[in-house]
């Protein structure tokens, strides 16, 4: 029984080499099995993310990935240094954007490097395909990293299960399907790897592992803004360990090396710049570093001066709080003096869920920044949501340094996920780890063979021999031996079964029927989970959102390709330097697919510029014309879903109004767009301001004449289920330049001013 577990633990511990010291190599097939399971997990992770490619094509999805793709192309075409110095004059016209300094380059550099290496080997892969398949490949790596982390925390079999769980968990799949070429795709891998290396370095206290951890952290910093999570969680772990009295030389070495090297490395990323030393988000790490030094110093004094415990306590109580107070005071002073940036608005919105809605409508307008309800949790985590507290409990019951870490990880990630729905992504890995621990623990208990196995290897025989020889003091000897053998297998003390488990095992454990029932139930749950994951991945997360589909009358799939139709029209048939105004959601797509200059895009760094565009969209035509002339706009693009019944710019129009109102409260007022009863209407119940707004006019231009079906009157808007209120729409300064086949994208040309101002009225003629 114990022997079996020991085998499992030893399989991959020392790369299979651990048990070989005893002669016969029983671990060979186990490491092969582990390797095979990991390989399969990788394959499953990769292939389950290919639904979109198989159903549609190898295409970049959604919005942000289009920018990443464009940046990657720039990187591959112009080289790394040009990329770092890239000033993109095609975005945020007329301001431009310093891309090299405002982007996390990790993703692009990774893809560019892979592309470069493949092409150097004459594997002629297009950069688009590298970008599309990057996230699935990295999910395989993530599952390997998760395996390593879980193995450090618990044991090999839990690690393998965790690798399998993370490979298909929808919470992670949602951000890493093929084509979803976004920072998170590589960042979750970097996150897991950093955590694994951190745990490793805390366990070993080795500088080597700490430096590895810092390097991995550097990669994470270069890839995703979520690195702040690491740089706060790791100090928190150190702090909690200190408070628990678990300070050790290992911890000191690990954290000191990690902090110093990690800090220096993170300063190298242009976008991060001096933030690690100058912003409040990073101050916790610095504080804990100082505290750790103080703590170690006090310990050093104790050893050096040979203090008694009483004296030491006095010194400790004097120094450590003093250091803490001094640190806090310094922090406050520096913040006040402007040397350290105060907390950003996005940070506040993590603590106060109502903050963004009141102060930053731009953040609140994004769906993924909303507070999730219960169903996204269930949808993304399914049964794991129920099992991961059990895993957490198992960890806490048998606590050690690294399990403290995973507990903190679980609690903080769960909190953040509850605040912001997109952070379910960071919760998913730890949920998989802890659920794997829970499942593995249950299986270990209930799946075990009742009769002790007849050893087929030398280890067991030898072990039995030693058991017999030890006679009366059997238990103690066995324990000692267990520790010894498992350590040799690459394990650390504390990972093996606990005394309690061992006692139970010696008593024989639960009966056969109970075992069968429990195991079958667990297997059934896991099977359900697998089915759920596949369904969710296939139905919810494998849609490029650039291409829409409908079911035809004969059940065939009709592809609605309006976005690309319009974007390609822009690309081909407008001047190369034409400036296109659209709501910021479409900025990256216009830049990526249409290759035209945009006024605002998804980077949203300049709120007032976005508000200006919002104001133009919300104003009447002549006021909007003034703004558009001042912005040199040549074309205006709106998304209109009235024909297809899609969400569109009319649906998000109130956000435009709100954001514009934030900057121009005198010119745009939300209540003007709502009727007397406070309703937002496009039909006859709407307001005059609404009907005169640019978005309304551009969306519904000539729509009033269009009769979509015999049962509906002309001008029936399918998205809102109403006949539009104003059908007679004509323009003075704009003209329709292009409308896609299903009217989803409408592009208007902004006319140049006439040479002579036309007279509004007829000339008054004197009649003498």
């Amino acid at each position, binding site marked *: 029984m114990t022997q079996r577990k020991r085998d499992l633990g030893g399989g991959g511990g020392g790369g299979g080499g651990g048990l070989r010291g005893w002669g016969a190599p029983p671990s060979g097939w186990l490491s092969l099995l582990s390797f095979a399971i990991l390989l399969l997990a990788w394959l499953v992770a990769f292939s389950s993310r290919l639904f979109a490619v198989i159903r549609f094509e190898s295409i970049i999805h959604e919005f942000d990935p289009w920018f990443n793709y464009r940046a990657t192309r720039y990187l591959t075409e112009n080289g790394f240094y040009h990329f770092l110095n890239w000033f993109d004059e095609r975005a945020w016209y007329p301001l431009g954007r310093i891309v090299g300094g405002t982007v996390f380059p990790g993703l692009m550099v990774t893809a560019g490097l892979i592309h470069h290496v493949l092409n150097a080997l004459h594997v002629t892969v297009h950069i688009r395909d590298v970008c599309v398949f990057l996230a699935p490949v990295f999910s395989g790596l993530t599952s390997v990293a998760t395996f390593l982390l879980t193995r450090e925390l618990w044991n090999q079999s839990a690690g393998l299960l965790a690798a399998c769980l993370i490979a298909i968990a929808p919470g992670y799949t949602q951000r890493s399907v093929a084509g979803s070429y976004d920072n998170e795709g590589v960042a979750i891998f970097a996150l897991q790897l950093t955590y694994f290396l951190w745990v490793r370095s805390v366990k070993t206290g080795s500088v080597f592992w700490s430096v590895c951890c810092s390097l991995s952290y550097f990669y994470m910093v270069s890839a995703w803004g979520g690195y702040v999570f690491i740089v706060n969680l790791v100090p928190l772990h150190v702090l909690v360990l200190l408070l628990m009295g678990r300070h050790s030389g290992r911890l000191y070495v690990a954290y000191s090396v990690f902090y110093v090297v990690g800090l220096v490395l993170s300063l190298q990323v242009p976008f991060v710049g001096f933030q690690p030393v100058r912003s409040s988000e990073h101050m916790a790490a610095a504080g804990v570093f100082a505290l750790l030094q103080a703590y170690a110093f006090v310990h050093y004094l104790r050893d050096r001066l040979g203090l008694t415990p009483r004296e030491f306590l006095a010194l400790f109580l004097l120094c450590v709080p003093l250091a803490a107070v001094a640190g806090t005071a310094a922090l406050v002073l520096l913040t006040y003096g402007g040397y350290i940036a105060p907390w950003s608005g996005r940070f506040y919105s993590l603590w106060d869920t109502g903050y963004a809605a009141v102060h930053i409508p731009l953040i609140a307008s994004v769906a993924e920044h909303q507070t999730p309800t219960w169903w996204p949790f269930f949808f993304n985590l399914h049964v794991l949501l129920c099992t991961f507290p059990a895993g957490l409990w198992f960890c806490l019951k048998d606590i050690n340094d690294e399990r403290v870490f995973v507990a903190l990880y679980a609690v903080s990630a769960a909190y953040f996920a509850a605040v912001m729905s997109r952070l379910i992504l960071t919760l998913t890995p730890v949920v998989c780890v802890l659920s794997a621990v829970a499942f593995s623990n249950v299986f270990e208990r209930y799946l075990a063979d009742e009769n002790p196995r007849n050893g087929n290897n030398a280890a067991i025989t030898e072990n039995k021999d030693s058991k017999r020889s030890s006679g009366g003091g059997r238990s103690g000897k066995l324990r000692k031996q267990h520790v010894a053998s498992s350590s040799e297998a690459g394990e650390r003390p504390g990972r093996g079964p606990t005394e309690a488990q061992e006692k139970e095992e010696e008593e024989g454990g639960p009966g056969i029927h109970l075992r069968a029932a429990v195991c079958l139930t667990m297997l059934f749950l896991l099977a359900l989970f697998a089915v759920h994951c596949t369904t969710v991945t296939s139905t919810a997360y494998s849609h490029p959102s650039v291409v829409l589909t409908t079911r035809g009358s004969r059940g065939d799939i009709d592809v609605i390709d309006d976005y690309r139709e319009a974007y390609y*029209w822009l690309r081909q048939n407008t001047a190369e330097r034409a400036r296109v105004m659209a709501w910021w959601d479409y900025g990256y797509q216009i830049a990526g697919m249409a290759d035209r200059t945009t006024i605002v895009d998804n980077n949203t760094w300049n709120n007032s510029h976005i508000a200006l565009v919002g104001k133009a969209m919300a104003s009447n035509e002549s006021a909007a014309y003034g703004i558009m002339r001042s912005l040199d706009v040549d074309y205006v693009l709106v998304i209109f879903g009235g024909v297809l019944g899609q969400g569109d710019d009319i649906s998000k129009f109130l956000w435009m109004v709100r954001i514009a109102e934030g900057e121009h409260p005198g010119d745009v007022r939300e209540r003007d767009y709502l009727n007397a009863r406070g309703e937002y209407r496009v039909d006859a119940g709407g307001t005059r301001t609404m009907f005169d707004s640019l978005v309304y006019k551009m969306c519904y231009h000539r729509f009033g*004449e269009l009769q979509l079906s015999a049962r509906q009157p002309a001008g029936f808007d399918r998205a809102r289920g109403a006949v539009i209120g104003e059908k007679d729409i004509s323009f003075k300064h704009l003209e*329709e330049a292009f409308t*896609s*086949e299903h009217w989803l994208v409408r592009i208007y040309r902004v006319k140049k001013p006439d040479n002579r101002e036309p007279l509004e009225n007829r000339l008054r003629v004197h009649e003498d």
Partner: protein
Amino acid sequence: MAPSYNINWTLFVFSTFLLLIASSPTVTADGLCNQNVKRTVDLSTHLAKITVDILLSNRGGSAVQSFTWAVEPDLAPHLAYIGASVWGDAEEADATLGLAQTTIHGQRGQFYEVQLPFSMEAGAKLRVKVEMVFSHVLKPFPTHITQAERQLVVFQGNHYLYSPYPTLSQNTHVRLASKAVESYTKLGHPIKYNEAIQYGPFRDVAPFSEDAMEIHYENNTPFLAISSMTRTMEVSHWGNIAVEESIDLRHTGALLKGPFSRYEYQMQPDSGLSAVNSFKTILPASAQDVYYRDEIGNISTSRLRVLVDSVQMQVKPRFPLFGGWKTDYIIGYKLPSYEHLYTRRDQYALKMRLVDHVFVDQVIDSLTVKIILPEGARNIRVDTPYPIDRMPDQLHYTYLDTFGRPVLVATKTNMVEQHIQDVVVHYTFNKLWMLQEPLLLIGAFYILFIAVIIYRSVISKGMRVSIKVHQGHSVHCDISTSQHVPHCVMNACDKIPD
């Protein structure tokens, strides 16, 4: 009045000059005359196709081997294709004749010396057919139209046959695209019926006569032109030939003025008549794995139909093409190599179409053809059906290549449907080269496995130490991680019998 006089005067000077240099071998003008000319000017598409049926008669004293064909100076730069053949009851019927470009001093225009299949005796007569295709000669007028307007074009040509020989009698039949004709020149009281205009007969026309013919009429046929096209054919000896064409398409008709209204285009049948919504491309019957995409992905609007003798692709660009609009796309497919690659021992011959069908009445302004041969192909020789500009050869690297595949590059401008002909590339290839790629793979894996074996056996063994614990007992410990050693030793102590 004055211009025609001038022309006649220069003609007179020229003909005397011609007589003076008659001994020159390039000009065999003496004695020939066009006894009867039937000219068909087909303007029903965006091309001008002029077919001339001539009864040539030799009135001179000696036999002739060739005759000279002239193209008007205004039309000559637009000449895309010219071909001549003999009509007759002899066994040489319908034989295609060889053409060579030549010059005539003092005359503007383009001239060809047409080799006859046999010597034409004095007094003999011969029926010759010459076919010419001109691109971009129909000029839209007005140059800008709105979406609702129809497209009108002007053709400017010659009422007479432009020929170095006197013409005794000639007719010109002009075919138009529609009945709607704004205006046409009325030399010799032409007859207009339905979609055609009949000029002539004109009798006894002097050599090199020119008289401007101008027809302004409605033509809503697709004015599509391929502004540039790159056709790549990659030969693999493993069984297929990958063809990829990257095509830049342009609507060369009257430019769209004012707004494009989708409502009108969808709801009104006569809106955007000259716009191009889709066209058919005929691919070879054995084409497989067809793809149709552009810079931003697959173009989902296309449809593929597999017919008995071809694969027909309904190419629908992402958006309808109005006047002046352009788009581009890439179409690619695979062909089995047994249909196009012939071999005898290490001699190979690749027979492929130099350019293939894109749409009916296609015109390609600029074509680049790249033929990628397998790595190791040498002694390359190319037989082209018509002259084509060879560029310096290139090298192409793709999967498992070491020293690159030879790429033949050639360009040609102004091509039409008549240019869809086969090119033959001969080369030698040692079949042993076929083994190179599998061997490369095997070698790579071999090295990988060897490396792993070496790592496992040498490096991890090197990290082990033997520690002598007790008399006769020693233990092997892994020193790659320092923590292992004490446990390892401790463990070994346990094993020592007490």
